[in-house]
């Protein structure tokens, strides 16, 4: 990032405080996830039945759950779990998808058509159901949630990278690189991919939110992460039983955390698009 990019980013942020707020929110979320051990006031899995189902108070800011566990501490640790899953899944699908898509976009022809049709078939499935099936088939492990989430994100990255590379492959500087003797694979990886990276950053940010929702959704229906591991989806699922009894805080806080984090990443994605291409702002 050069100085002028930073200046431009500052200019856009000044005119677009929502993006600045979203960036701050995303950063805060990251810090919370990284420093969860220090930030959480209690042990997230230590139960204390005598202290169960207490509403928010000075000692327990977000109240306690049916086993007397501190909800705030669980939220903080869950942030780490959910973000880790989302980041891992998105990085995986980005790495694979960008390379596959870029190679297809560069080569064109038969490879491109075959991969394109496979992607079309993938996208024709209801993606969440596909993820459920994958986790069910692979087994209830955190890494399987990551794989499933990465897999259903893959088609978007392939398509995106393919389209971006395709419009660039006949530009002067790409032909110049060929005339300078650059081998094809390194032309794709070292020339084309870095140039489509900024555009893909938008996709990555938007996808992070989606991946968080996806991981939470899978745990909500009982796939993937198992209790008592703190995770937002599980917390919502467990708390739902108590909502009719008026214990709203069991569901409200994890739901809120989920909503805010997804919102942050989505807004950040929109903002990134503005920073990278001011013409796309309307």
């Amino acid at each position, binding site marked *: 990032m050069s100085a002028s990019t930073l200046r431009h980013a500052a200019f856009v942020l000044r005119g677009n405080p929502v993006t600045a707020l979203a960036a701050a929110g995303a950063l805060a979320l990251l810090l919370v996830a990284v420093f969860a051990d220090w930030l959480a006031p209690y042990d997230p899995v230590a139960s204390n039945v005598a202290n169960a189902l207490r509403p928010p108070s000075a000692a327990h800011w977000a109240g306690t759950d049916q086993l007397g566990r501190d909800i705030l501490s669980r939220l903080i640790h869950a942030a780490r779990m959910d973000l880790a899953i989302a980041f891992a899944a998105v990085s995986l699908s980005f790495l694979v998808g960008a390379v596959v898509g870029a190679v297809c976009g560069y080569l064109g022809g038969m490879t491109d058509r075959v991969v394109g049709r496979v992607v079309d078939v993938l996208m024709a499935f209801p993606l969440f159901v596909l993820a459920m099936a994958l986790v069910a088939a692979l087994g209830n492990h955190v890494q399987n949630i990551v794989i499933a989430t990465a897999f259903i994100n893959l088609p978007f990255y392939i398509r995106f990278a393919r389209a971006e590379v395709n419009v660039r492959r006949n*530009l002067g*500087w790409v032909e*110049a690189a060929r005339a300078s*003797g650059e*081998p094809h694979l390194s032309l794709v990886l070292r020339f084309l991919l870095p140039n489509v990276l900024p555009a893909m950053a938008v996709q990555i940010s938007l996808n992070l939110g989606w991946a968080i929702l996806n991981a939470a959704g899978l745990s909500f229906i009982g796939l993937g992460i198992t209790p008592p591991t703190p995770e937002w989806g599980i917390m919502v699922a467990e708390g739902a039983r108590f909502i009719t009894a008026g214990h709203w805080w069991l569901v409200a806080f994890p739901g809120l955390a989920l909503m805010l984090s997804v919102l942050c990443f989505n807004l950040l994605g929109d903002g990134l698009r503005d920073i990278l291409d001011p013409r796309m702002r309307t």
Partner: protein
Amino acid sequence: MSEPLLSVENLHVRFATRGGEVHAVRGVSLHLAAGETLGVVGESGSGKSVTAYAITHLLDRAGRIAEGRIRFAGRDITRAGRQELRDLRGAAISMVFQNPRAALNPIRRVGDQIADALRAHRDLGRRAARARALELLEAVRIRDAAARLDAYPHELSGGMCQRVMIAMAIACAPRLLIADEPTTGLDVTTQKTVMELLSALIAERGMAMMLITHDLGLAAQYCRRVAVMEQGRVVEEGPTAALFRAPRHPYTRRLVAASPTRHSTVADLVGEAPAPAAPPPAPRRGEGPLLEVQGLCRSFGRVLAVDGVSFRLAPGESLGLVGESGSGKTTLSRMICRLLDASAGRILFEGEDIGAIPARRFHRAPQRRDIQIVFQDPNDSINPRFTAFQAIAHPLRRLEGLGEGPALRARVEAAAARCGLPLELLDRFPHQLSGGQKARVGIARAIATRPRLLVLDEPTAALDVSVQAVVLKLLDDLRRQDGMAYLFVSHDLNVVRMMCERTIVLRLGRIEEEGPSQAIFAAPRSDYARELLAAIPHFAPDEQEATA
């Protein structure tokens, strides 16, 4: 003198951008009488288009008229309201834009679009509007107008799209027509017909025209008066012939000198003598031609882009390849560069059939460093993530295996210095360089490996005339000193005449005419070459009065 039709007084336009406020127009005053033709000439960034947009209130939201007055037919329209503008646009002032294909709505039939323009200002029924649209298409001399009425823009050629735009512009009989680079991007022969149509319509209907162009030849031929703009100011204004014959302002003088005429040489353009020629290097193998192309063909689907082209190029020779869009000149140049495979035919480089090596494997061929290319648009010919140094170093690393170190640096700096690129610019990224500087980086990269054949694909088409002059001089000197052979692809016949000893005229993928450049220009044998030559808006300030 009576009140002029349009008078612009001390106009200032400012744009709010992320880099602060840009003062694009700085005190422009222009006057245009009814029925007059005024040319506004200048290079990119001179503020000529912004002035036109300010007059028609088409500035985008970041721009505003900061100062000054615009009067039209005795009315002050500087701060015209929405209703007033509706009445004004189209009915009183209308505009013809550059790139007609983009200015037309791609999903509506052109007849409907003309009818829309009519019905915006007149109370016309559907049928009456359609009938009137047909009359207009006939007025702009579109062949088979009744059938074209139901055509979509993509079914029409660029020239026809521009005629449709002109039909829309004159639909409501405006008194002033502003034409913003109306023929840029069109072929010369199309340019000629479009410009002749415009001037005939204007004369017929007594309209005034403001022609905004970067082409002095065009302004000289079609305008009675000319205003020269530089950096947001009008630096000189006057009757066309007198102004170009004896320009007073130094900028006008530079511009006039840099514009190629029928007789100018490269040295004339910049006012410097050519570099002394070095004797051409001995061919590496035998005495044959450097390049020989035999029956080269290339088809895309069912279209034959290049159809059996054969020619020879001697070492150190400069061969021009001219033709209009669709003539196959770019396809031909890509095949010779081995970036594209031929469908049939042979490409012999120093006697070796390099056409037999597939283009996708040619990057490993030993001839790769001997055949290099300079691309058309300097803006997209450098990797945005490379500094100028990295761009020039790239072929040296790949083709000569030079690693990071003083040897590489010395070679890059030598190439940059030969191209007149200041060494302190080597650490900059493309977006920090001007168009002319980027062009120099592109040339330095191409000559870095000391190729024996340099293919130049419209190397100056995207440059302003004054930059073009300097770049042409640079290329001419490089060839004299290094004895490289040039294959110079261009649509600009004057440039080819100056740069090349021999010229090939291409049309629809075939060679129409071939011979020494001077001979082709003095006495073209083929009808097509004659037509092409006649279509150039000749800029000849010394010769005769403009015909306007």
